[in-house]
């Protein structure tokens, strides 16, 4: 394909991926990697490298808006970033030795899991008694309740959440995705942090997690700048646009459609990985 055509098509596709990622809260990486590998026949390693770089851009670019809303908790985020960055370095090391077929299959499973997760509701019973470590580690906080007041919350099962975050970091480093779905799961379901706080803090953490494995990807040559440029700019603009229309869109319907698309892509990634076509 001609350079100009390729660049333009990749830019448009990445814009759509970034927009869908922002609208559904799953992030751009989950659509981007199948788009590049299945749609543009890009080698899995280049796709992972491009995704990782675009994940850093969207996480950092969107952070300012979330911070203004007052939901994200910097202490929870940074305490758990120790786990995600360590995991990300481990994941990137594994990625260097794992065959691309195996990566494609693992990625497919993550897609199927994300599709299933995006359809389930998020309600959890509050902890029986407040965890004393929540105060000791300075993680207790409050968030705006939407009526001008504040709702206080505490954090529970910190060790289990930390371990889950280590796993999220490994996935992020292995596949070049933000793994926001797993991060939210750890905070929302395990640590019983309110959903809004979980999603915004997860976004806050994604950039740092991705940066931890970026060095390994860069030196291994996974980051091709000519491919990364349209991907990065497309995903970034798409995500910013997606965040703007989020308030007006019919998110329920969109989520359902998106979950089906992601599930189908997951099956296709597994099939292609299994048959060694990626």
């Amino acid at each position, binding site marked *: 394909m001609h350079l100009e055509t390729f660049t333009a098509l990749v830019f448009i596709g990445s814009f759509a991926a970034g927009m869908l990622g922002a609208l559904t809260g799953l992030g751009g990486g989950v659509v981007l990697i199948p788009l590049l590998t299945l749609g543009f026949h890009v080698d899995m390693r280049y796709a992972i490298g491009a995704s990782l770089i675009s994940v850093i851009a969207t996480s*950092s670019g969107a952070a300012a808006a979330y911070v203004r809303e007052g939901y994200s908790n910097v202490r929870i985020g*940074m305490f758990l970033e120790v786990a995600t960055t360590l995991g990300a370095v481990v994941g990137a090391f594994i990625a260097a030795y794992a065959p691309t077929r195996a990566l494609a299959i693992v990625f497919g499973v993550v897609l199927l899991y994300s599709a299933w997760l995006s359809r389930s509701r998020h309600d959890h019973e509050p902890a029986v008694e407040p965890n004393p470590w929540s105060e000791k580690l300075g993680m207790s906080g409050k968030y705006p309740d939407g009526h001008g007041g504040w709702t206080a919350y505490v954090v529970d099962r910190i060790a289990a959440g930390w371990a889950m975050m280590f796993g999220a970091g490994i996935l992020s480093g292995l596949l070049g995705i933000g793994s926001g779905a797993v991060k939210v799961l750890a905070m929302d379901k395990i640590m019983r942090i309110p959903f809004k706080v979980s999603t915004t803090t997860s976004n806050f953490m994604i*950039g740092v997690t991705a940066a931890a*494995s970026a060095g390994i990807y860069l030196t291994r040559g996974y980051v091709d*700048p000519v491919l990364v440029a349209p991907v990065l700019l497309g995903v970034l603009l798409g995500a910013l646009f997606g965040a703007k229309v989020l308030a007006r869109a019919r998110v329920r319907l969109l989520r359902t459609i998106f979950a089906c698309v992601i599930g189908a892509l997951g099956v296709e990634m597994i099939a292609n990985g299994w048959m060694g076509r990626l």
Partner: protein
Amino acid sequence: MGRALDDEKMEWMMGLLLRLGVLLAATVVITGGMMYLADHHGTQVSYRKFVGHPISVRHPAELTGSTSLAVLDVGILLLVAVPIARVGFALFAFLAERDWLYTAVSALILAVLVWGMLRSG
């Protein structure tokens, strides 16, 4: 609640730092991309086969052959530096708050990031 106020201000400054950093990196990437398109007008591209394009943080001088690729590489390195700078900022902010626990947490993350950046062969 003096600490909560400090945290709020710190998070606000972090958000600003991240946004400006991404804006700067994106501008450099757009510039490099335009230069590359002008240089390689009408050439064929394929990413079917993995060749590899190593970008080294330790030897930025010998990034790549052509100027446009070097500009793109610098833009990408700037972008990767943005979240690392955020952790560095947090380290000093927690230090100023005399919050030793989170100063240590920030230092630990920074150590992991630097380790991932340099020990990557």
